[in-house]
């Protein structure tokens, strides 16, 4: 059953077949897209018509490849921008939250921590609609009271950033908090007894210890933001993010350029994941 116990041959083989089938199930959709991205055909599926890079580079109206499709490139860029701002904001606030809940004692701490964890169990749809409702009400209220129209409170780029930040911060808090649990408090106390202020001890002692977790959390937040659809769709203005653009193309204008984009995403994610794994291994 486990490494150290002997097993019947049938059991071992059966188990291995199950594992192989599972990995086949896992890889199949990704592998299929990666191969079909190079298919010389005007349809997204089989038959295989030969190798071609048209869906990456072609520039005709019949075949608009990925690198010639301005709309698609713009939405990729919007997603990268969104991901960057979301990752930056949530890393900042999430790290603050981790330090707050791990190191400070105050009233209502348990309740606030419960609130900070709530995004884990709130469906993304609900976060999207509730932030849409409240920002719209806030926008109307501010316009009526002060006569100022704030564009960011209606569906827009910055509302998407806020919406994604609202749950990414939770993940950062958990990732950084997990590392903070392993932190040796006496190091901070030593810094304090050597006359460092509380802020100095955090900046020079605690933060360097947390750095790998903070970098990891930044990447995780970026990736979550980059692939988010459920919350984003309600908050989006005229700047489409990549998942929303992909969704509307799947529904309304299916061309093999989707294969090419998906191929690029898969490659990009695989490389990022590898970097993240190696970086965290080095820091262990």
């Amino acid at each position, binding site marked *: *059953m486990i*490494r*150290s*116990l002997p097993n019947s041959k049938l059991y071992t083989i059966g*188990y291995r077949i199950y594992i192989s089938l*599972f*990995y086949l199930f*896992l890889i199949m*959709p*990704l592998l*299929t*897209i990666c191969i079909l991205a190079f298919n010389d055909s005007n*349809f997204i*599926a*089989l*038959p295989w018509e030969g190798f071609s890079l048209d869906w990456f580079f072609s520039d005709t109206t019949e075949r608009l490849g990925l690198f010639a499709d301005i709309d698609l490139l713009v939405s990729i860029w919007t997603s990268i921008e969104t991901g960057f701002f979301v990752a930056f904001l949530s890393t900042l*606030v999430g790290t*603050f*939250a981790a*330090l*707050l809940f791990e190191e*400070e004692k105050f009233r209502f701490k348990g309740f*606030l*921590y419960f*609130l*900070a*964890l709530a*995004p*884990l*169990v*709130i*469906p993304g*749809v*609900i976060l999207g*609609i*509730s932030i*849409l*409702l*409240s920002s719209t009400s806030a926008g109307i209220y501010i316009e009526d009271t002060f006569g100022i129209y704030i564009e960011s409170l209606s569906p827009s780029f910055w509302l998407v950033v806020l*919406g994604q930040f*609202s749950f990414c911060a*939770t993940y950062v808090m*958990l990732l950084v908090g*997990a590392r903070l649990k392993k932190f040796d408090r006496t190091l901070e106390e030593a810094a304090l007894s050597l006359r460092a202020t509380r*802020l100095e001890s*955090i900046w020079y002692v605690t933060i360097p210890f947390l750095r790998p977790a903070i970098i990891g959390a930044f990447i995780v937040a970026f*990736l979550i933001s980059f*692939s988010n*659809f*459920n919350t984003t*769709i*309600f908050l989006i203005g005229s700047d489409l993010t990549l*998942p929303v653009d*992909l969704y509307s193309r*799947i*529904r309304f204008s299916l061309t093999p350029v989707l294969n090419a984009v*998906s191929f690029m995403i898969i490659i990009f*994610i695989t490389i990022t*994941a590898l970097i993240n*794994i190696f970086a965290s291994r080095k820091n262990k």
Partner: protein
Amino acid sequence: MMKKRNISFYLFIVPVLLWLIFLLVLPHIDLFISSFQFENDAGETVLSFNNYMSFFEDSIYWYTFLRTAFYSISITLLAFVVTFPIAFYLTKVVSRKYSSFMTLLLLIPIWVGELVTIYGWMVLLGDHGVINSFLIYLGIIDTPIVMLYTDFSMIIGLLYMSMLFMIVPVMSALDSLDDSLIEAASDLGASKWTIATRIVIPHAMPGIASGGIIVFMLIIGDYVAPNILGGKSSLWFTEQIYNFFLTTIDWSQGAAFGFLLLMLSSGIIWAVLKITGQKLERVGS
């Protein structure tokens, strides 16, 4: 008695409070209030139960609600059954040399994102999709099997995009299980089934519960898989919420439905936490 606070305390708590109040508490209060707002015949907005009444009056709504709940629970159980042997294999069976690479493979579909993987299934399952073409090429079938736009394809999509979130917590729970317990049970003559149900699964219960909660939450709140892979009869409750917000623009009605969905998911999650004796804090770790 108030202790004198350090400046760092305020530096930390102010942004955290801003986050929690403005992006979590107030929006959900607003969701709750909006769900009772109703425009009467005179065109005035009044507070009423009408939005909730229409949920109960129209059978398609509560039918979809129950269907979504039933499917979400079933697919969560299915995800457990499918992934538990994998988690066990990766932590206890396969040699350590391969396990980290095999675990890394599991993470890639998660990070690639739902849109791409669901699209991949659409390409695979279609009438002229890869699977049908392959089966026809082999001569096993003559006409394509209809798989896309059915409940079957919807279930595959929901299972695929959620099941990996079950493996990770179960693996970390199994990691702490001492191999010698399994060895001892085996030496004393316990069968594999007995070991699995009396030792391994009870030990992994915290991981199973937190994985189950995450998986359930992802499925019940999902829109992409039911919408792209499901057929016309594959009703899903989130689709109705999307329609109220993005198609018919009846936000108060959508808010009421959203609130019902939130109650459903929180209720089930709360029940699971109570039954398994877990705390929400553990779900995150």
